[in-house]
């Protein structure tokens, strides 16, 4: 059992890997960046991996998405902050390069039409590639990696089934051309199957994919071991999950669902960050007379939002078994530069 963190600062000081998860549009990327900056302020060497940052945030961090390796972001901290924008395709290519037995094999795969299709189109690719990149960075001397995961469309499959991609490439496709022992006798039906498949997707696709599998031969083990290592890292005490949500009903429902998936997978949620809360003006909406003036009307409506968000946040917190809950107020002007992120970092983890 992993020890429960006492605060965000505590979590940042101890974790080797932090994955930020949550519904789209709740400010997950900004929160991830602030966590990374806060850890750098603690003196740690941090890598921030973002998927699809808003342009201004990307500019603020000097991210161009061109290199697929972290670059140093300088600022007012003792540690080191490195940031990168994930390029899923380049990450996959790097994997092929790493696991290929020789340059020739790598080239055959990278030039295969079916491979090029898989990489650019296989959905769920981004999160699997984020996990892969995470592992690679974890092995290369950073104290902490903060990963801003893509919005939760694929139910955190990269966490619950880290072997899925490997399974797809090596087991499922392989099964068709080289069925396991007892099934070899029925390879006639496999031939039939391939013929049927060709009728649907076209002969050429079947041929491309077979060529891909042949080129891939011998790499399964490397791929499989890697998937296992990534899975082990995500399951270890080194990995922490930070759930980010707003206190609106829909994102909160999604957050509860994600929390449940993480709990079922044996991870749990280490910290819940409730973002974009309306500031409490400290009066009960029922104590204000909205007929007095427009300002009083604004106050009543404001406090009604505060009360609704308070209830939603409390419901979410009680649904998740989480020890650290941090509430962030909605900002009147969205964060657009490193100074803003640094300020948010100071709020979450005061020095």
């Amino acid at each position, binding site marked *: 059992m992993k020890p429960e963190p006492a605060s965000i600062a505590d979590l940042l000081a101890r974790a080797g890997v932090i994955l930020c998860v949550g519904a789209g549009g709740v400010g997950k990327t900004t929160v991830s960046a602030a966590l990374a900056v806060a850890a750098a302020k603690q003196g740690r060497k941090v890598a921030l991996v973002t998927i699809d940052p808003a342009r201004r945030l990307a500019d603020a961090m000097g991210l161009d998405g061109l290199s697929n390796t972290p670059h140093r972001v300088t600022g007012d901290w003792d540690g080191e902050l490195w940031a990168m924008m994930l390029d899923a395709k380049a990450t996959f290519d790097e994997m092929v390069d790493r696991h290929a037995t020789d340059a020739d094999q790598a080239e055959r795969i990278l030039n295969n039409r079916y491979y090029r299709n898989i990489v650019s189109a296989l959905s769920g690719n981004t999160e699997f590639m984020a996990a892969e990149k995470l592992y690679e960075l974890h092995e290369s001397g950073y104290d902490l990696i903060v990963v801003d995961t893509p919005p939760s469309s694929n139910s955190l499959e990269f966490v619950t089934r880290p072997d899925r991609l490997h399974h797809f490439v090596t087991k499922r496709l392989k099964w068709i051309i080289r069925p396991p022992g007892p099934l070899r006798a029925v390879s006639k039906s496999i031939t039939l199957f391939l013929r049927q498949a060709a009728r649907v997707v*076209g002969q050429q696709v079947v041929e491309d994919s077979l060529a891909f599998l042949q080129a891939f031969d011998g790499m399964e083990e490397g791929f499989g071991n890697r998937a296992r290592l990534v899975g082990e890292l995500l399951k270890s005490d080194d990995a922490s999950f930070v759930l980010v949500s707003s206190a609106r009903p829909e994102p909160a429902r999604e957050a509860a669902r994600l929390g449940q998936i993480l709990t079922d997978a044996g991870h749990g949620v280490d910290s819940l960050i409730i973002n974009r809360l309306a500031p409490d003006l400290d009066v009960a909406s029922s104590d204000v007379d909205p007929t007095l003036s427009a300002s009083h009307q604004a106050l009543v409506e404001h406090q009604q939002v505060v009360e609704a968000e308070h209830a939603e946040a409390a419901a979410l917190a009680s649904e998740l078994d989480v020890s650290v809950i941090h509430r962030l107020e909605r900002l009147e002007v969205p964060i657009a530069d490193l100074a803003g992120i640094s300020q948010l970092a100071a709020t979450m983890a005061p020095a």
Partner: protein
Amino acid sequence: MIVAGKGGVGKTTVSAVLGSLAAQQGYRTVLIDLEERDDLGRVFGAKKLQFKPHRVNDHLEVRSLGAHDTAAEYLTDRGLGVLRVAGSLLETVTSLTPGLQPMLQLAKVKQLATADGGRLVIVDAPAAGHALSLLRSPQGLLDGIDAGPIHDQAQQVVDLLADGDRCRVVLVTLPEETPVTETVDTAFSLEEELGIHLGPVIVNGITPVLDDLVLRPKGKHSSAAGRAARLRISRQDHEQRQITRLASELPLATLSLPNLAGDIDSAAIDVLADVLADQMVAA
């Protein structure tokens, strides 16, 4: 009609509102969820949406077109049921070709729109980049497959998507910086890269404007009402700037939906449908 936008902008709400409104006006309407999530069904009192349509009223149906069910139906209809014998075989054959599953979902949408007398089909598209990959998938298949049934199917879907008389993408945004920026980017990608025609942009979640709010000089805002007024004005102004920017960067008509307190239920959908109907009459 395909409803798309960044995550968290309220695509599902807007899809439900458009569906209700179309049905009210007498169009036979099918609302489609592509991702097998519960939100769209919940609004219409269906716990879990299924491939089988859920009937809301005489004019409105809601259903989910999950990738697996849609592919299974496609294969069965074409006498290729043998591929379904084992579920994993089906998945293998469809995942063999990236882009095939989304293309088959769109093909099913096309079939629903044209079969028996035609219907208005409203698709609650996946978030942000996933919607772009969905809409790119038929063209991608055409590039990869030269002939055969899938090629022909993909060609028909590409033709439908590019036909502004039959298909429009409605982009949804919030009056916030990042969603507006991404809406503008997505709009240009859809039009220029894929030749898809856009309908009006729907700006969702607008803070209703309170008239007569007075901003008193600083220092006099110590009262809670004064602070609430200042926050409200700042919010309204911020949203207005984003709406103005959207209009200046994107030459499309816009429709507005207010931010409603509380959860989106069927009563809220009716309120929003009325708001939209009034704007369409005015326009």
